[in-house]
């Protein structure tokens, strides 16, 4: 028996298609005509048809303004409600991105906010695109192009160094670098200038893996971070964990908290450095 074709409403299909295309971005009428007709056997969308469908969407409360000749979905009633708290939180996050991240990150976050703006019923203030943290932007450029950087400190010291990443910790931003073969975390507030040098570097320090052992009882209750993997399950005594790419100072500070229940296994320089930190700490008390 031949199955009867499923009945559907052509006009509704075209309204939904118009809405789906409008949700992809901002388009002029001509762009909408081209996009909507792209997969049609014959052109069915013209100026008056699209206008009618846009009006249909507007009729149910979908806000579709036309600015600079472009139509876009500003908000949808069946999006979601943002509370005052939510908006405050998003504003805080936006300010962090604006003040402390590169223009690329700003652009990405703008796009994120714009999507939330479209699908939520309350507006979020637009991010001013011209504001960004210049040093962070240059740092990221150096990383992308694998070029060394020159950090000029407020106390006139100069470091020609290799960038590793920008690390946020405890409300501060640090340039994670290697200088004379040693990893360092430089508080950005100490830096007065940053220059991208023409000299390239080859090593990718982001891949630094640190392996450490955690002993009982910490081993049983340890929560793996997202950049960590369990190398050895709990054997009644300990677990072994590998940590990828965490800033050294931050990692050391955390592992020190685990006192004698933690032991760095690899890499050897890290193990030696931890040993040195403990010995130096003991020397503070006159103990050798």
């Amino acid at each position, binding site marked *: 028996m031949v199955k009867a074709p499923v009945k559907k*409403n052509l006009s509704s299909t075209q309204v939904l298609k118009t809405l789906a295309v409008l949700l992809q971005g901002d388009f002029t009428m001509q762009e909408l005509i081209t996009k909507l007709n792209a997969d049609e056997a014959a052109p069915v969308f013209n100026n008056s048809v699209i206008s009618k469908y846009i009006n249909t969407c507007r009729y149910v409360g979908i806000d579709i303004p036309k600015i600079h000749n472009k139509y876009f979905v500003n908000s949808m009633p069946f999006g979601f409600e943002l509370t005052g708290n939510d908006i405050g939180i998003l504003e805080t996050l936006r300010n962090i991105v604006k003040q402390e991240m590169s223009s690329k990150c700003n652009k990405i976050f703008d796009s994120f906010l714009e999507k939330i703006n479209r699908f939520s019923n309350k507006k979020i203030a637009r991010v001013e695109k011209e504001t960004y943290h210049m040093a962070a932007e240059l740092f990221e450029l150096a990383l992308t192009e694998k070029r060394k950087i020159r950090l000029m400190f407020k106390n006139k010291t100069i470091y020609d160094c290799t960038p590793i990443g920008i690390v946020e910790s405890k409300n501060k931003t640090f340039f994670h670098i290697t200088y004379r073969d040693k990893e360092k975390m430089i508080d950005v507030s100490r830096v007065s200038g940053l220059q991208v040098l023409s000299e390239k570097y080859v090593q990718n320090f982001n891949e630094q893996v640190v392996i450490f052992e955690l002993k009982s009882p910490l081993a049983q209750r340890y929560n793996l971070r997202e950049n960590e993997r369990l190398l050895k399950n709990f054997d009644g005594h300990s677990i072994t964990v590998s940590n990828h790419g965490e800033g050294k100072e931050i990692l050391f500070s955390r592992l020190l908290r685990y006192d004698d229940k933690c032991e760095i296994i690899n890499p050897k320089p890290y193990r030696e450095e931890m040993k040195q930190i403990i010995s130096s700490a003991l020397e503070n008390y006159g103990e050798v």
Partner: protein
Amino acid sequence: MLKLAEHTEINQVSLTGVRALIILALLIESPKSFKEIHQSLIDYKLMQAGDSTDIIRIDINTLKNSGCEITRAGSKTNFKYTLLKHPFSMEFTKEEISVLKRAYNKIKSSSGIELMLKYDELFKKLAANVTDCAGKEVLYGISVLKNLNTGIIKELIEDCAAKRTLTLMYQNPSAKEASQKVVSAQKVALQNDSVYLYCFDFAKKESVTLNIKRILSIISRISDGRNIEIKTTNVKFFLKNSCLSDIDDDEVIVEELPYGKVIEGKYYNDFIAMQRILSFGADCTVLEPADFREKVIEKLKSMKGVYNG
């Protein structure tokens, strides 16, 4: 409930299109039965009671044809249509979520538990409004409270504000079975990505920190308003200028020196104090009290033993 524009504002609309959008909105709100959809369309004056209900079936087919995944209204779904996926929802890119995560990670260490609960709610709300399963999971995963029962956290915050005495079942990591504890709730705090209840343990007669993840249940709450005086662990220490860490709220600088500063910290108990001091590594020297200084030395010797063994 959608609010339709006045006809005077709209000179030309597709009424079948309006019906499809209304049904879409109804299903986004929650699963609906055929009867509920029918009644809503009558309420919106888009149908009359005597109209053929086939119109609704055609509209649902139209939505399916436009990319909506809608279940059958059968016994498995309590005779309701459920919208599983639709092309009109948010989808975030990996880069967008990554920047969001970076900004959140920056703010979380300096934010209190109440604020973290609000972030958690926002991430859950965003996740609920994306249809892409992978995106949902990543959004759920950003929050530091992702695997915790936020309901218990909120209740405990209230308990602390009211200084209640709680009887709770707690799974001590070193014990095989959970045991009962009677404590006076003091404070809920976020520390190293874990949430702790700072409280006074009546059996131990000392202040303790309990990982909220290990609180299995709260058996009873008594609002006796008992004011327990917490004896903090006060430590005076020297911190070199090379140390990157910020001073916490429970620490004050008592003296600035050329190469560092003398700080006095008031910590909830010895364990918290010890963790804080050790985290400074060789940048820190405990000055007072002598017995705590000795404990730190012993701990460091034990740590050194780990590497020399």
